[in-house]
């Protein structure tokens, strides 16, 4: 929990900053049984990123990375919208889209766990090829549709926006699945030391394969949300750079890219930080041409605050007995020898 303190503080600081600029920022109102307000907006707009970041967390915990999620988002939207535009049933369309995402996840997992290709390279294949595939499905057009069932996923309301409920449900299921069973521990074990895990009888290959499939499924659902929200499939820009936001959310949440211990709560906070940041940029009126710089600055500060060296240096004057090096598990030479 300790390592989540800085991202949490960043989140609170961002929210307070908004309050200064927009005094009504925290107000919520119930209208026609729907909850409205800036906070709800943040959650709703952040839902796809959160979903993808959750899948990414498990991938990163196994010392991997999935760059293809943005492309999978585009493919999911393309498949669903094209089928609906041709007069298909919305539920069937969504199942088809998720089925394809499952196959894409199997492909990524196969490359990484069976062929042993480095994850960054293996998923780069689908990252570049996937958008092409989406373009092929939509024949290069932006497919706009008008279907109430499909719109429900991304724009619907059950007091709260449905997108939020889906993301939180996935978070809850994951938390139960990985912490109430041994899955979480085994994932961490494979991430820290794959060979030792194999020799202890852990099915390292199956576990790694599974997390890539799960990540692709999360991206698929996120893709449906995004397409549903705008009633259209845009193969070019749907989910563009969302993999970066997702990776960032995971890292801000305190999960190390070196694999091992992960935190779903951390990822939730990380995703909220990123989305709040995007919203803040709009509400406080940062000029659009400096938006990215502003975002970058905040992200750098949060990451720096989490760096073990810096936290050690910051803590030293407060408590002189705390050994800062204890946070660094290896001496520099040891790390260099790897």
């Amino acid at each position, binding site marked *: 929990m300790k390592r989540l303190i800085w991202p949490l503080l960043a989140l609170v600081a961002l929210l307070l900053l908004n309050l200064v600029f927009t005094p009504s920022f925290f107000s919520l109102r119930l209208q026609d049984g729907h909850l409205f307000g800036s906070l709800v907006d943040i959650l709703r707009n952040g839902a796809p990123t959160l979903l993808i970041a959750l899948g990414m967390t498990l991938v990163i915990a196994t010392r991997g990375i999935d760059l293809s999620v943005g492309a999978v988002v585009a493919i999911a939207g393309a498949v669903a919208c094209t089928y609906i535009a041709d007069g298909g049933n919305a539920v069937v369309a969504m199942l088809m889209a998720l089925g394809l995402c499952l196959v894409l996840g199997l492909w990524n997992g196969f490359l990484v766990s069976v062929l042993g290709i480095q994850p960054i390279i293996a998923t780069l294949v689908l990252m570049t090829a996937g958008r092409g595939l989406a373009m092929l499905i939509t024949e290069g057009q932006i497919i706009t549709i008008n279907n109430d069932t499909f719109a429900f996923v991304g724009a619907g309301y059950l007091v709260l926006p449905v997108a939020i409920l889906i993301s939180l449900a996935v978070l809850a299921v994951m938390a139960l699945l990985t912490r*109430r*069973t*041994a*899955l979480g*521990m*085994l994932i*961490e*074990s494979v991430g*820290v*030391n794959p*060979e*030792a*895990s*194999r*020799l*202890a*009888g*852990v*099915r390292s290959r199956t*576990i790694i394969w599974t997390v890539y499939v799960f990540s692709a499924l999360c991206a698929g659902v996120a893709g449906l949300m995004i397409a549903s929200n705008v009633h259209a499939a845009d193969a070019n820009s749907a989910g563009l750079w969302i993999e970066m936001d997702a990776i960032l959310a995971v890292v801000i949440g305190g999960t190390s890219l070196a694999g*091992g*211990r992960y935190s779903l709560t951390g990822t939730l906070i990380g995703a909220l930080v990123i989305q709040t940041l995007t919203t803040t940029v709009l509400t406080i009126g940062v000029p659009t041409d400096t938006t990215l710089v502003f975002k970058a600055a905040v992200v750098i500060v949060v990451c720096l605050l989490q760096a073990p060296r810096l936290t050690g240096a910051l803590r030293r004057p407060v408590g*002189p*007995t*705390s*050994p*800062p*090096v*204890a946070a660094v*598990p290896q*001496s*520099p*030479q*040891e790390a*260099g*020898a790897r």
Partner: protein
Amino acid sequence: MTDVSPLVDIQGITVTFPGVKALQEVDFRLFPGEVHALLGENGAGKSTLIKALTGVHTPDAGEIRLAGAPVSFHSPAQAQDAGIATVYQEVNLCTNLSVAENILLGREPRRFGSIDGRAMRARAAELLSRIGLHIDPGSALGSHPIAVQQLVAIARAVAVDARVLILDEPTSSLDAGEVAELFRIMRVLRENGVAILFVSHFLDQVYEIADRLTVLRNGAVVGEHATTAVSRLELVRAMIGRDLSVLDEVEQQAERRVPSETPLLRAENLGRTGAIAPFDLELHAGEVVGVAGLLGSGRTELARLLFGADHADSGRVLLDGRPVKLRTPRSAIARRIAFTSEDRKAEGLVADLTVRDNLILAMQAARGWYRQVPRRTADELVEKYVNALDIRPANPDAVVGTLSGGNQQKVLLARWLITQPRLLILDEPTRGIDVGAKAQIQKVVTDLAAEGMAVLFISAELEEVMRVSDRVVVLRDRRMIGELPGEATVDDVLTMIAGEAERVQVS
């Protein structure tokens, strides 16, 4: 010697980690031109003391003086610049670079701003010849055996003209000839006035090379002596704070065991090209079978075949008289075979996880991910084995990577004991751990065999193999060359290894 002032003078340093006092007001003196042995059990604070001296840890209290002047290092680089060079137990060099590049890393001779490869190789060759090592400086470091890499690490230390040379268990992976070579180099450096701090678990070596010694126990100094002034028995007592009567028990128990009539496991013509030539082997319940052989003789390869970690390409394995296929570690584990690797860091422990998670890992993996070991069962098992094997600190939530070597080894052993194996394969279970932990592990092994487990015990230390085993198979050059009864002596093993090969010298 006492009229010379110490080169390194540590006074009253204390190092604390969260919840633990790793060092408590430790005094330590190192004189120029001496070899000083630092002794103690695992977890006694040897590594912490070295790390405090080399700037890895910053002491909370106390003072370090180098040649009379107080120093405070904040990084290993600063310590190195001040003339303190360190060679770690695990070689910390870059195996993908050449020997010359490793020796002169960061101090490459330059010409017109770029690295002068020729000058670098020439300088490296000179440094290598100074320590009497004749290898091609342009060859990749990874192409040489660990022992040579270790000597290269020392050449690197020589290259910086170190005043203080710290050798942290440099001999744990060397054979007798290589140790002799190392000692020759150490003596040369000693003549040149270098102060050498030497950490080793081998008491023979300490008596051979060290002038003085300091003993640590539980983070405090229990004695500083001239080597000639203390007997081995006194030394061992000082280190572990009790008598070594367990070792006698180990020996007695080896005689009391009754192995079963029919073999538990039978390997017929089992082999793997390039790893080990086909061999036959029978393992019975209730006996300890030792595997003896020099480094690289195929000991580990044999064990990995029996555990399914590698695939055999000839022969078969019979368990209870029925042929079984050991395709993966999983299938071996399902048949209740357990294996602890000699490389506990890379192939054994999951360093970032807790002691609890590491202990139940094999059991959990066997149950499948969806049937989590209930927290209560896990806690009971953990408590039982932490107590039974005396794992310290006795905190199940401690991250296993922070434990000392001996305790890590016990965690690994306990991980497998929890799965209640019928055959336990131990590859170098006592490497790099102290006398006390060693004796404990040997005792556990003999107890397990007495309770009916079959144990295959692999160790580079022949004395140890002979002490715990009922019979010993001997390997040489990746081939099984014979078997000896447990009453045989170390000399018998050496004779057998030397036997057919005239080239091998027995010292």
